[in-house]
């Protein structure tokens, strides 16, 4: 089975004033389709940078990123936007819903941006609302929803384009334990249906749920649970 994600020799350097910060160094990583990966590490270890890079929101200074066998580092911004639209779903810690749009409109947003027909949009949004238990919240705005509902809207939005992978950055960071548990179960269900799930967290119990753990420190991959002797 070919790897979904293949990173080789990735370097990401930020310039802060005169000093250089190596956010990622000598990173080689391969993630197969359908994996459930937790990226852990302290703040500033480069885990968020790695996630942004995987989501094509950021570019490596050196190295090659192959997504589904295709080198995406050399794509034009428009092509990268298309890859994001079709293959990648984002779930953020702070939900990032558009406050003036209803739950249904927020879920439909990726399809609206992709130019999908309104009739098909309505059908898919209706199904998603039902799947995520939000059917009676369709016309509510984000400020009328609870934290758990907001994150469910965000997950529905992330999956509405049927992406190959979901990138979740501290998805339970703004939620209480019970609601966080629900959200994680939702994400894991998606993973069981074949979607690659990559979760960034500094919560070790959360990270332990994943089948594969990556430990980042100072921009380097310190530990990969699938490789015993590293």
């Amino acid at each position, binding site marked *: 089975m070919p790897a979904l994600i293949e990173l080789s020799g990735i370097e990401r350097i930020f310039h802060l004033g005169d000093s250089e910060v190596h956010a990622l160094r000598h990173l080689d990583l391969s993630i197969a389709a359908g994996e459930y990966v937790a990226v852990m590490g302290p703040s500033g270890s480069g885990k968020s940078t790695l996630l942004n890079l995987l989501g094509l929101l950021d570019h490596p200074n050196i190295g090659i990123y192959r997504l589904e066998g295709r080198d995406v580092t050399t794509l034009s911004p428009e092509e990268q936007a*298309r890859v994001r639209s079709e293959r990648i779903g984002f779930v953020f810690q702070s939900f990032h819903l558009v406050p003036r749009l209803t739950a249904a409109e927020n879920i439909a*947003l990726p399809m609206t941006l992709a130019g999908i027909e309104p009739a098909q949009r309505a059908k898919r949004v209706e199904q998603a609302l039902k799947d995520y238990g939000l059917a009676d919240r369709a016309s509510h705005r984000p400020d009328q929803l609870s934290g758990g509902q907001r994150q469910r809207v965000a997950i529905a939005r992330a999956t509405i384009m049927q992406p190959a992978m979901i990138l979740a950055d501290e998805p339970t960071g703004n939620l209480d334990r019970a609601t966080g548990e629900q959200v994680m179960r939702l994400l894991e269900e998606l993973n069981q249906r074949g979607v690659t799930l990559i979760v960034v967290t500094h919560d070790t119990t959360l990270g332990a749920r994943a089948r594969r753990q990556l430990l980042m420190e100072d921009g380097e991959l310190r530990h990969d649970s699938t490789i015993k002797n590293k």
Partner: protein
Amino acid sequence: MRTPDLIRFARDAATGNPLRTSLLILAMAIGVAAVVVLTALGDGARLYVISQFSSLGTNLVIVLPGRSQTGGFNPGNAITSTPRDLTIDDAQALLRASAVHRVAPLAIGTSEISYGGKLREVMVAGTNAQFIEVRRLKLAQGRFLPDGDWRRGAAEAVIGAKIRDELFGAETALGQLIRVGDRRFRVVGVMASTGQGLGMNTDELVIVPVALAQAMFNSNTLFRILVEANGRESIEAAKAQVSEILRLRHEGEEDVTVITQDAVLATFDKLLSTLTLAVAGIAAISLAVAGILVMNVMLVSVTQRTSEIGLLKALGATGATIRSAFLTEAAMLSLAGAVLGYLLGQGGAALIRQLYPAFPAYPPDWAVFAGLGTALVTGILFGVLPARQAARLDPVQSLAKR
């Protein structure tokens, strides 16, 4: 992104902040309204002056004694530099010109008019039967001066509407004898009230036969000769023929000035059109200011919505999509402002027309189109920079911002 979605998205973004949006639309509306109202005033002034000039009569050629232009050396100048006066014979001679339709001599003076113990100062116009036709005037009662020998004339007078009211009040004026200066006249007609008029107001005029007026003022000169050409196209021919006849009659000396109404009209038309343009230009400055305001507001909006822009990028929006979303919003705000301003401006112009019915304050079509067009172009032009800035935002940093 499909166009209806783009428009809905921009509309929601605009209505998401009602205060910002309404202030911006108001600023744009004031600019457009200023253009519409000010050009309506300017063009109204132009139309007003033109209509006033037209009320003097149409196809008019006016002969003035004396020459205002400097000519070349003429043997006549060596003998005398005093211009010859215009006489009734001069006026009569003009009837021979082929392009001339009617001629009305005009002698003007002031005198006292009295009736039944009432006395007032009036302007007396000595002329002939053609005057009423040449000047396109109307009678309210009776008849005008009879046609006949210009050198004689019965002691009959036509009085203006205001004179009639003041001297006769409720009495009938027709057939009454009035005294003008040291002569007695019988009132045969009353002019219709015109209410307004450039130069000579016929409401306060007493019109008598030209020969009697000259006798009254003890002179044989004319103030003006009004010549009506056969038609609009023969005005220039009439002017040339009139000049030639008078030059020959005045022993080769060009000592009269012949002006056409068209020339005067054209001058005023040009002058006031320029004025309208200048006023429109001043009003356009407010539109430019509104455009800069659009830019400022959109830039603030980009800053406020940074995290939303980052999200849109993460969800697969291209730079072009974000750019067009912000441009659409700017264009919609400008369009709404322009339409509102247009309505306000037309309302203002209508109000001016209501207050001053004689003043045709209609904004010219070109000004309306220019105003609306400038509003849209400035709005979109000044929207480009914020839109580009939004499209260039780095998604990682934008998302980090709450």
